[in-house]
């Protein structure tokens, strides 16, 4: 019967061989990740396909040691003895005690751990010679490397795979947004620098009121002066050797001209052109008066 354990802190656990399957192979591989890639195929004939296994691989002497374990099964066992999964920080395998198990280790009244041909094996006590000396397991002397974790998936609502996937997506989106944001901000840097330069040269234009009042002074001047010049050019186009200028006046933003024409045809032509240029046309006989407000 299992004892129910109550824990306050996190613990490391050592799994006895009934929770894992062990294979040792001499393979011409340099890296553990390469070994892990072929781990599943090595266990093909040994494992129950209805379970989902994970693999732990490490180098032992000149060979590779492969351990297959079902983390769900381990989790169920741990819960059955009252160990909450999230309290388990690392899981080690009894096989990793190989150097320590020189003498059989008494686990409980029925089982012992024994090194058989360099494989740590769970052996029923009753088949072991009663004269065999047992050695206690000195936990303080143990030095483990490379244990496995329960996996966040077993403790969290979200699996590690989903976490990595969603986390990566969020990070990529976030980084892209920051880069994009910086690019957008930099897009007005050029204009901003130009404005700063202009304001440094003309500090009195800093005030929008000042700018508006200066513009309000010059814009009408610019418009009217351009209109005056345009109107004079238009009137000059009405003139020819058959239509002569008699008088032209510009005063108070108004332009007036008197044009004498030689015949009715020319008069009509001048009149049409003047209308086309938005001049007000008047006058009887062959003399025409054209005028326009600027």
């Amino acid at each position, binding site marked *: 019967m299992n004892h129910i354990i109550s824990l306050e802190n*996190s613990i490391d656990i050592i799994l006895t061989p009934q929770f894992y399957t062990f294979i040792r192979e001499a393979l011409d591989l340099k890296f553990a990740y390469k070994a892990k890639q072929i781990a599943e195929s090595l266990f093909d004939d040994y494992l129950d396909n209805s379970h989902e296994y994970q693999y732990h691989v490490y180098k032992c002497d000149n060979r590779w040691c492969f351990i297959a374990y079902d983390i769900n099964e381990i989790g169920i066992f741990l819960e059955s003895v009252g160990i909450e999964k*999230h*309290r388990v*920080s690392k899981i080690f395998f009894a096989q990793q005690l190989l150097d320590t198990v020189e003498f059989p280790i008494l686990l409980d009244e029925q089982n012992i751990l024994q090194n058989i041909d360099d494989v740590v094996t769970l052996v029923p006590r009753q088949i072991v010679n009663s004269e065999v000396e047992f050695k206690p397991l000195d936990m303080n002397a143990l030095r483990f490397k490379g244990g496995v974790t329960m996996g*966040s*998936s077993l*403790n*969290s*609502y*979200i*699996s*590690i795979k*989903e*976490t990595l996937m*969603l*986390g990566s997506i*969020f*990070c990529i*989106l*976030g*980084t*892209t*947004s*920051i880069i*994009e*944001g*910086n690019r*957008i*901000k930099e*897009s*007005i840097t050029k*204009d*901003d620098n*130009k*404005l700063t330069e*202009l304001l440094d040269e*003309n500090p009195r*234009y800093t005030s*929008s009121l000042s*700018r*508006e009042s*200066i*513009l309000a002074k*010059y814009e009408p*001047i*610019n418009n009217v*002066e351009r209109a*005056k*010049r345009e109107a*004079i*050019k238009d009137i*000059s186009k009405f003139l020819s050797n058959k239509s*002569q*200028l*008699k*008088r*032209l*006046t*510009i*005063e108070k933003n108004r332009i007036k001209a008197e044009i004498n024409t030689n015949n009715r045809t020319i008069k009509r032509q001048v009149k049409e052109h003047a209308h086309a240029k938005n001049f007000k046309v008047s006058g009887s006989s062959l003399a025409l008066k054209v005028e326009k407000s600027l």
Partner: protein
Amino acid sequence: MNLMTIQRYKNEIILMFTFLFAISAFYYKFSASDYVDKNRNIIQKQIKEINAIESYKKQWANKSMAKKVKLFKTIVPASKVKRFSKKSSKLIASYINLTSNDLNKITNKLLNIPIQIIKLQIRESSKNKFTMEFTCKW
């Protein structure tokens, strides 16, 4: 929140932080975009206004115009210049006995120089002879 809880909800915490990072980055991007939209128009309007002021001042309040307008005294023979009065930034000039060519010459110059034409009067005094009078300032 103790260490164990952090350990237990590690995935959720990682996701929460990455999500917050993404949201903050989105907010940064949109606020940058908003800032640029608002300020680009303002900045460009200010640049346009300053450039327009500079351009107007250069055109219609050009201090060096005082020298340029002197040519209205010499553009036609002195006998045709009835009056040439330049005071401060104002010029009053009047001409007599101008031929069509003289008239065109003075008018073209007047139109091409950026000065404000306050008053202009052209009158045919006799056959193909004109008088001209103008007041301008800069």
